[in-house]
């Protein structure tokens, strides 16, 4: 019964958000039926659409896990966007610039490079938070801008594909030896091994949080840093670890996107993943297994959006509105209670569980 209530809020939140999205479309003179028909056809209505949905779901699982893991430590990682950008860039660089390394090794090197780059980009705000108290929200957002501008500089200059036939600002393609083999034989189905790995990583993160020492420390620091300190946990170190791991997840997701799907990097390739990942993590209640269905929903929305735009000329941006509405209802279940007259138990009320994110602008931990 309790599980039912716990599920009731996210489900009703999604339904209400879609309904309000329809109101927005109507109010601006769009055709709702056509729009939602396109959304369905483009996301789950055809086998190929399902494959496209899973292509979107893959980075969302990684991004959602990254945000969720930081949540567990009481940290808000808004920097997934930047961590994806540097991860992708590092992995592409190793993929095309390192030559003469045989297949599985080169692939592994590329993925490790991307993961490490993400870990560093996520670890910096963790370190600054622990050392100086600089709030991770501001630092991660600033690092997003730094990463995105740096990427745009690199792909249009030093890392630009030298092929004169390519006018776009994009890197060369990575070598065959750094690519993942296709998951399905038909190239029309773009879903790649990254999706399978994403599910495995979600299980791994769940295990890490539940059963490992680090997971215990992360959860304790998130629930009550003072208590954690008195219990002898190095709070600052745990924060750095949590943020680095969070960034590593984002970087890993980006690398798999490179070696399994895109094979190159171009400026603006990841724009939007950051905010989407926050939505994925919040709708998934900050839980690794909650992230998967939540990523499925947002992946389906994104995949369906292009078909929707094609059929009904409704701008893709409607997805952001629906996303924000979902967040409002998930974050304030009292609204859902009030609209639908359902009873939601108190303990299901907080989206991030026992963790409170707003702790003023913080002070140093070490």
């Amino acid at each position, binding site marked *: 019964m309790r599980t039912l209530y716990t599920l009731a809020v996210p489900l009703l939140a999604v339904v209400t958000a879609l309904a309000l999205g329809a109101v927005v479309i109507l109010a601006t003179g769009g055709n709702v039926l056509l729009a939602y028909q396109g959304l369905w056809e483009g996301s789950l209505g055809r086998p190929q659409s399902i494959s496209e949905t899973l292509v979107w779901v893959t980075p969302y699982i990684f991004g959602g896990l990254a945000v969720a893991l930081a949540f567990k430590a009481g940290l808000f990682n808004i920097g997934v966007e930047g961590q994806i950008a540097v991860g992708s860039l590092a992995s592409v660089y190793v993929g095309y610039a390192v030559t003469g390394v045989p297949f599985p090794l080169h692939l592994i090197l590329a993925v490790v490079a991307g993961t490490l780059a993400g870990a560093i980009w996520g670890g910096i705000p963790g370190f600054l938070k622990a050392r100086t108290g600089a709030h991770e929200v*501001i630092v991660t*957002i*600033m690092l997003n*801008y730094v990463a995105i501008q740096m990427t745009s500089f690199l792909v249009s200059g030093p890392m630009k594909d030298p092929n004169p036939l390519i006018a776009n600002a994009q890197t060369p393609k990575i070598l065959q030896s750094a690519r993942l083999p296709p998951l399905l034989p038909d190239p029309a189905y773009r879903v790649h091994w990254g999706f399978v790995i994403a599910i495995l990583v979600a299980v791994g993160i769940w295990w890490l949080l539940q059963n490992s020492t680090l997971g215990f420390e992360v959860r304790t620091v998130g629930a009550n840093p003072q208590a954690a300190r008195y219990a002898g946990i190095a709070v600052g170190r745990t924060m750095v670890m949590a943020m680095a791991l969070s960034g590593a997840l984002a970087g890993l997701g980006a690398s798999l996107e490179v070696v399994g799907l895109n094979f190159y990097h171009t400026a603006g390739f990841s724009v939007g993943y950051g905010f989407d990942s926050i939505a994925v993590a919040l709708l998934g209640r900050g839980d690794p297994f909650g992230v998967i269905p939540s990523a499925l929903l947002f992946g389906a929305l994104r995949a369906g959006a292009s078909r929707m735009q094609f059929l009904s000329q409704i701008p893709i941006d409607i997805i952001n509105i629906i996303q924000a509405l979902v967040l409002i209802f998930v974050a304030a279940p009292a609204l859902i209670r009030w609209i639908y007259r359902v009873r939601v138990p108190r303990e299901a009320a907080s989206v991030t569980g026992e963790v409170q994110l707003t702790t003023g602008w913080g002070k140093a931990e070490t």
Partner: protein
Amino acid sequence: MTVAAPTIGQLASQPRLRFWLQIAFWAGIAAILLALTGVQFGAAATISILAITITKATPLTLGALAGISCERSGVVNIGIEGMMLTAAFTGFMTGVYSHNLAIALVAAIASGGLMALLHAVLSITFRVDQIISGTVVNILAVGLTGYLNRQLFTTGAPAGQSVLPPIPFGPLSQIPWIGPIVFQQKPIALTAIVLVFVVHFALFRTRWGLRTRAVGEHPLAADTLGVNVNALRYFNVVLGGALAGLGGAYFTLESVPHFEALMTNGRGFIALAAMIFGKWTPFGAWGAALLFGVAEAIPTAMQLQGINVPFQIVGLLPYVLTIVVVAGAVGRAVPPAADGQPYVRA
């Protein structure tokens, strides 16, 4: 009787003085940099950098004042970016349909207030975590402005829009240095400066200010003395939204006559950093906003001087500076004691 003059060390240990010493330190650095550019490129370059600094600091100053209004009463607001973006678009859209910049300005301010009202309802009434509530505002703003911009202006922005003209100051604008730097600025930029003084006075010399600070430091005590804590927080958050709205209006009604997706480009977050660096005081925040303004003005001025540096690299300056400032200042900056805590009446 004689009193021994206090040493600099003793002076520096007083928090208030240390604050001003810090300001003087940064002002000194800025002055040295400006003197250097003056020597290198001539006085005209320095004047141009200073004028651009004040212009570029406008949305940061207003955003920081918005943050002060919210956080002094105990509500953390990371949704300023979204409020600005919404206001920038609303101002532009209203301008297109009404052909009246005054109406557009009012609409922009109101839309900022409206987004702030959402933040207030979520964080004060429903006690949603304030960071999450602010993030919701940001995502909603990206969605709404992006959607409406494409839906209403599919064929590109209508041409022929205008921006607010500079206020005619007559002979004042011809004063050497001060004229081009201050008296040739446009209305929102000057209003922002006036508002710094107004907010300072209101915060430290009026009943509203006393109540705001009381609610931000110790809501229970304020409540005991008869202040309606949540009503005041509602008021301050919406007021902050209106200030952020004016800051948003700068982008489309004063800076350029068109709207681009995501055009606020993180200014709302940099404004928060300015607020923190300025220790939640209007003058401190203004000083910090000017510092960030310089960081934005220097690349612009370099381009005007024809110095060729990749724009993506010099464009990083404000963002990197924000990180340095936040990392350097926050440990010592003390936010209002009840900042971020919802108030539940026992």
